[in-house]
């Protein structure tokens, strides 16, 4: 296969403050004269903000150039754990129309019946896929849904008079960092189970950790290595019989959707990420939705209000006191719920099952070809059988033999139009990890191209490692210098800080202007 002669757009586009020309304007507002005292003298702004002064066409072209200097999903992006999939443009487009974009969140329910029908319809779709009894969409991301579960756990045990006793949340070393992090934020002691020989923690380790102090289990399955814990139903029984709640972080739903249902496995609650599994665009990190669903018993604790079907119309029903309350203002990123609803309707049950099949087929196809590349191995090599929608690989051997790291390979692959692969969450359990996820949207040609690029880069690593170590070469800019951004004399999140610090000793040689 001939690799693409790719080169990223290079515009040498200065930061916007450097483009400012005094007197230029990009937007006018009608002139007005507020009455005296409208803005008390003491509270008037003394000096205008140091914002750039731009005309409209110059501003537009500046940001269009920046967009061209962003790879996004123009190339092939197999960023594992994030389930890169197509964002259908019908939903994206309709969501910009006034009937979604122009809605105020406090409008009377009579004026948003279409929106509420969509929320209810999507709730029903997720109930079917999970077996849960009720979903809410207030959480503005997967981590926020994990936090919702922590808040709900708190409310649930408090209502039973066990709030003071149940102080621990159990998770595993392979869970997403948001699980231990939100548990700690909510005031829980985090118990992290190490992995056993099969790639998941042993049942004995769980049993040793569970006690009458256990508030909840927060766990994903399969994990980010494509390994499914076959004892998960027993795990749930152990936790629940000790009085804890079992929460299923369904970040890795793509490989198992239509194949298992969280409630059937005994879980009390689960979370789906609409910006991953359900086709909603990532936006470089949101706006996102963590759809949180739970059993009937937990529903009174959900953040409210709830959308309820009442005859031929939909109403908002306040939740009883003593539950979560709110994790974010209003009902959530409902324009994203709309897009997810559109995706699910386009797919249907059969399409969803097909997507899960395809993502697992493609991952195993990739695995077969990737493991044939010198220097590439997979985690738990002795664990037999097919992985699900992801496999955790290691470039440890390549690194030992050539000094080329996974990050170097990531940078070099970008020279051929391949978006960064995912490495691994902390802590790394294999050296030099990488985790591609094929998903269902990429064609076999895309997957083959990705594999060929990796093979080419590995070949370079053995023949001419300097090319890889100094990559990228075909990108917008080369890699970051090793200057320490954690140094207060160096870091600058704003133009003002940059201007103040740029003449500090050891500061920048580059001029952002």
């Amino acid at each position: 296969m001939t690799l693409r002669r790719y080169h990223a757009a290079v515009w040498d586009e200065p930061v916007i403050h450097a483009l400012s020309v005094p007197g230029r304007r990009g937007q006018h507002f009608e002139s007005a004269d507020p009455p005296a005292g409208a803005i008390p003298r003491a509270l008037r702004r003394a000096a205008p903000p140091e914002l750039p002064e731009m005309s409209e066409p110059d501003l537009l072209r500046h940001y269009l150039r920046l967009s061209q200097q962003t790879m996004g999903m123009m190339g092939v992006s197999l960023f594992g754990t994030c389930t890169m999939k197509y964002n259908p443009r019908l939903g994206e487009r309709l969501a910009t129309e006034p009937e979604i974009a122009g809605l105020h969140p406090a409008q009377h329910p009579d004026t948003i019946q279409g929106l509420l029908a969509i929320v209810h319809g999507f709730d029903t779709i997720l109930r079917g896929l999970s077996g849960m009894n009720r979903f809410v969409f207030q959480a503005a991301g997967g981590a926020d849904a994990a936090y919702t579960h922590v808040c709900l756990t708190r409310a649930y045990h408090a209502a039973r008079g066990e709030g003071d006793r149940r102080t621990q949340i159990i998770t595993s070393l392979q869970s997403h960092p948001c699980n231990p992090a939100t548990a700690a934020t909510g005031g829980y002691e985090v118990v992290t189970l190490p992995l056993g020989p099969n790639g998941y923690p042993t049942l004995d380790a769980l049993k040793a950790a569970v006690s009458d102090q256990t508030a909840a289990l927060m766990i994903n399955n399969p994990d980010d290595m494509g390994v499914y814990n076959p004892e998960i139903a027993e795990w749930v029984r152990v936790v629940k019989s000790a009085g804890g709640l079992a929460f299923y972080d369904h970040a890795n739903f793509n490989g198992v959707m239509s194949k298992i249902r969280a409630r059937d496995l005994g879980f009390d609650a689960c979370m789906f990420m609409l910006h991953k599994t359900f086709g909603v665009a990532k936006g470089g990190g949101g706006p996102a939705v963590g759809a949180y669903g739970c059993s009937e018993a937990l529903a009174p604790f959900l953040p409210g209000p709830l959308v309820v079907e009442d005859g031929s119309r939909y109403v908002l029903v306040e939740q009883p006191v003593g539950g979560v309350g709110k994790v974010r203002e209003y009902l959530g990123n409902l324009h994203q719920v709309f897009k997810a609803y559109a995706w699910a309707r386009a797919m249907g049950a059969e399409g969803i099952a097909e997507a899960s099949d395809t993502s697992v087929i493609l991952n195993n196809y990739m695995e077969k070809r990737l493991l044939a590349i010198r220097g590439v191995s997979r985690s738990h090599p002795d664990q037999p059988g097919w992985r699900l929608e992801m496999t955790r690989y290691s470039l440890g051997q390549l690194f030992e033999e050539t000094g080329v790291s996974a990050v170097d390979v990531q940078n070099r692959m970008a020279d051929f139009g391949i978006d960064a692969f995912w490495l691994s969450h902390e802590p790394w359990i294999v050296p030099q990890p990488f985790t591609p996820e094929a998903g269902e949207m990429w064609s076999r040609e895309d997957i083959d191209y990705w594999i060929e690029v990796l093979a080419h880069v590995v070949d370079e690593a053995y023949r001419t490692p300097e090319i890889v170590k100094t990559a990228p070469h075909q990108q917008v800019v080369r890699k970051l210098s090793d200057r320490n951004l954690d140094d207060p004399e160096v870091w600058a999140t704003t133009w003002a800080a940059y201007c103040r610090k740029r003449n500090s000793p050891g500061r920048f040689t580059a001029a952002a202007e």
Partner: protein
Amino acid sequence: MSRERRAHPYMPNSAPALKAALLEELGLQDAEPLFGQIPPDHRFRGHLGQPPALSSEAQLSRHLRSLLAQNRPATQALSFLGGGCWQHHVPAVVDEIVGRAEFMTPVWGTPSSDLGRNQAWWEFTSQLGALLDLELVGLPVYSWGCAAGHALRMAARLTGRRRVLVPARMCPERRAVIASYCGSADRHSAIEIASVACDPAGRLDLDALAAAAGTSVAAIYFENPAYLGGLETGALDVVAIARRVGAEAIVGVDPSSLGVIAPPGAYGADIAVGTIQPLGIHMAAGGGLGGFIASRDEPRYAAEYPTLLNSIAETVDGQTSFGLMLFHQSSYGSRELGKDWTGNSTYLWAVGASAYMALLGPTGFQELGTLIAARTHQAAARLARVPGVRVPTQTAIFKEILVDLTPSGRTVAEVDKALRARGIYGGIDLSRTFPDFGHAMLSCVTEVHEPEDIEAFAVALEEVLA
């Protein structure tokens, strides 16, 4: 006649022959063996209860449009709803920029291959910092309430104290979010929230504040403008009281006011939070919300940020680039030992807000703030002349007006219903959240409202209350 199964438009490998070829590479006839890790009794074999597929875009589009047609958006009515999510003009170029596939689709990338997006983020923090007069700004969080919650937790860590003071009359949605963030399963680490009395425009009672402020207080949180529209004329005093007791002064601001209102940095606030929604982001039923956290650029504050922090940096050959600083303190870097947590947030809106701020520039923000101030006061004065209506605060307010219907003897729900029938959304009902006001609503005016809109609102109210 049986039809062959069609490839789904979103799935290139779902053409039956292509799928079979991939399976053949694995030596399989069908996908079932690939799921062998899952015990048979875990497998779901029933019906998923899904509605019928609409894989034809023509059909799906018709279905979706029929649902959307049942919405009557604020932007197509005459709406005075605000309260933290506001109707502002969204410039057309902002729509184009946030709709670019390159900004819409990326997940993470590398500093080299997603340089443009990282630069747009940096221009966002830079410009927001300029509006706030603060030099350290994090990447956005979910909302204003979430930003305030994180900031209060930062203050608790900074001071080692567990009590915060907030205005008694703040947005109930925001207050509920803060309550979640301050709660804890460990009662020793819970943060106690104490309310400080306010005037009817939401401004803090400085005497009450001084009395409540003691050396156990981690933070004083106030808003400028307040939820009920009042400009916090005592901002300097609030900050001074916080200083006196060693508490952090945290202010929540609406950035669209900052072309005319003194910025947090000017009156010495330690941490500023707020919303980015007014900066060119559509309301989207709340989907346009986004929050920010900013402070002075001091290591003491930087060390407590839960957000990702995007710094300007340089490449090995001296070109400008951008990189994350203090990543180790995030939950990605340190799991439960990190500062609260981070994750997917509202980063696309940072790109939109960046374009919006640059489009307005210093003069645009001044014009915008002046216009909103003028319209707010015009509306307050006009509504106060409606028989049966009382407007307790008619000066030094911004965007929001407390409209008290109590003298009319009518409930907000009744009046709202009658206004709705006239195509007017009059405001947020405060009668349940602040019952001591009686029957009051919070009505919002921005630059999108013309004088005739205000007149139409007042006339409609006169008719309804007659």
